[in-house]
């Protein structure tokens, strides 16, 4: 083999080795991203179903709150309450948590303000009414609560 051929082959080999290394690196990266992605899509699946269940759960809660033992058959009343508790337990066991925000200082990273009033009773922006409750799933905000906020009233 002539020197030129050797040189050409060496250059080609170097190039191929380089592209192989790139491909390997990309594969390793891809694997890492994929692992994250699998974890993310798992929690995304739970998230999706939770989002669909939430309106149902909230409506159910509203109905239960409006029920009274006097107006309906006591056994039926008890059964409905039992079912509601069951659903609540199920959602909690999957990591759903209702956010308790009444009276807390407003924080845009956790709450969404939809209305405000001015009040001399507060010294900081404070949640005074929950327009739509918020939920966390595994400690991440699934749906921020929509709240009415009292702003400290400053006399002009």
């Amino acid at each position, binding site marked *: 083999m002539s020197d030129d051929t050797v040189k050409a082959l060496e250059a080609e080999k170097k190039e191929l080795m380089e592209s192989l290394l*790139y491909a390997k*690196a*990309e594969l390793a*990266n*891809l694997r*890492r*991203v*994929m692992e994250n992605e699998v974890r*993310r899509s798992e929690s995304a699946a739970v998230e999706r179903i939770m989002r669909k269940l939430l*309106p149902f759960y909230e*409506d159910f809660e*509203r*109905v239960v709150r*409006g029920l009274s033992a006097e107006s309906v058959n006591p056994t039926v009343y008890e059964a409905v309450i039992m079912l509601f508790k069951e659903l609540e337990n199920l959602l909690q066991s999957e990591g759903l948590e209702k956010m308790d925000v009444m009276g807390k200082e*407003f924080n*845009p*990273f956790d*709450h*969404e*303000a*939809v*209305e*405000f009033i001015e009040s001399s009773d507060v010294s900081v*922006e404070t949640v005074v009414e929950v*327009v*739509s409750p918020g939920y966390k799933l595994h400690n*991440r*905000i699934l749906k*921020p609560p*929509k709240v*009415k*906020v009292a*702003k400290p009233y400053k006399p002009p």
Partner: protein
Amino acid sequence: MVEKIIGIDLGTSNSAAAVVIGGRPTIIPSVEGVTLYGKAFPSYVAITKENELIVGEPARRQAVLNPEGTVTAWKRKMGSDHKYVLHGKEYTPQQLSAFLLQKIKRDAEAFLGEPVKKAVITVPAYFNDNQRQATKDAGAIAGLEVVRIINEPTAAALAYGLNKLDQEMKILVFDLGGGTLDVTIMEFGQGVFEVKATSGDTQLGGTDMDKALVDYIVDSYRKDTGIDLRKDASAMNRVREAAERAKIELSSMTETEINLPYIAYDSSGPKNLYMRINRATLENLVRPIIERCRTPVNQALQDAKLQPEDIDKIILVGGPTRMPIVQEFIKEVLGKEPERGVDPMECVAMGAAIQGAILAGEMKDKDIVLLDVVPISLGVETLGGIFTKIIDRNTTIPIRRSEVFTTAADFQTSVEIHVLQGERPMAADNVSLGRFTLSGIPPAPKGVPKIEVTFDINADGILTVTAKDLGTGRDMSIKITAPHRLSKEEIDRMIREAEQFAEQDRRKKQEAELRNEADSVIYTVEKALNELGDKVPGETRKEVEEQVRKLKEALAGKDVSAIKDSLERLKKAAQKIGGAVYGEGGPGSGKEPKS
């Protein structure tokens, strides 16, 4: 490792970002999670009284409380001298964009686990040099090197891989967002997208449609009950959320229900809201809004001096274009189906990411990954006219797959390899791509020779099929250039047909397989009878031979159940021959190429 260049769709009310990972554009999520309308980063910036900077979703959430410190839609002022005053301090549109870009950069770094320094940013096609320069400056302020500014419609076309098609074409991009409509007509040729005309309406979008639906629900409820829900913020919030769900459901279903128990109270107690809404109702509500899109579309055509039939490709961008009525409207105006397959909310960011990957050298100009798959399955014809898939539809190329076959008859010295593409189980229903014969196979009983068939599709989409006799090492091959140069319509038709004929095809395939099995059982049984000779008791031999004859008769006919029954009876009779023969396992199992 190649340094990543991310793509950013810097929108008026919402922004999104994407990056190519492993050859595929992937949307970058914000740390707060995806928000309403799909795009991860609301284009909001806020300065609090305490002089804190808040960007994106949290800034949107506090806008009501801090209107004097919150700004959105500054994109409309990009490139102008306009200054926004937030709590006494002045900010240019560039600075506000920079705040948002910084946030996107941080979240992208968290997602990728590596520093991000470069980006491709998209702008509307009508942006002038000033506005483009301002966008570039915003990137620089944010610590991002803007390696390229590209037009939003161009990015959308890249996401659909239109630059990969080696042909000149005229493209109309219809971008209907939350609050604005942009219509762009481009001409593509020689690898370049050239804007021919733009038009639009800055006060038209999905928010108007949502409002129309909410108004309808609230008004109908008031008519029925006399109760006005508008006075109750909590009830209105529930109606808005239910309307959003209904709108999404009505994209795939023709009717849906809205159930809102205890939506209001009056003297008699709690009241429910129950309403059925069908697609026609929704469409009647939004039609006046969609009709307003007609003028901008016609205007763009007129400015480009084109007729509707001159447009080759239509691309839809923006959430509201997911609604069937919007798609039908476009079809009615332009007389052509829009492109499908990429999320209209994501395609601009994805296209920007693809441009980024091309500039980073991660992707070649021509290999747009979205189309780099085999669109229709490829395979060979095997015994009984069955189509045996070697490479499945949607497999990413380049790809090499092999499968080992054998002969169908004793002392067969050649096999014909018939290469096909399609989704139907029977070869005859698929498209033939070519055939060749591998000869010189040493004579042997059927099932003994091993023929390896390899399908190799290189990065250019060229298919090479090789058949190799593993016994002798002899091989033959055929090169089929561009086996999948089918038009989109052809592909759609083939897939549709496969679904349509699935049941009928399954029966045909079962019949072919049954016939193959019957042939193979007859072969094995006859062979056993020959080899064992006198060892088989006369009575048994007679019975088995009788069943073989009956099965052959059945095979000559068309009655499938007769074949099935005869085959079962033969199997039963053959068991009497004794376990010795069957213990070895006869040939004839597995797949065999057509001889």
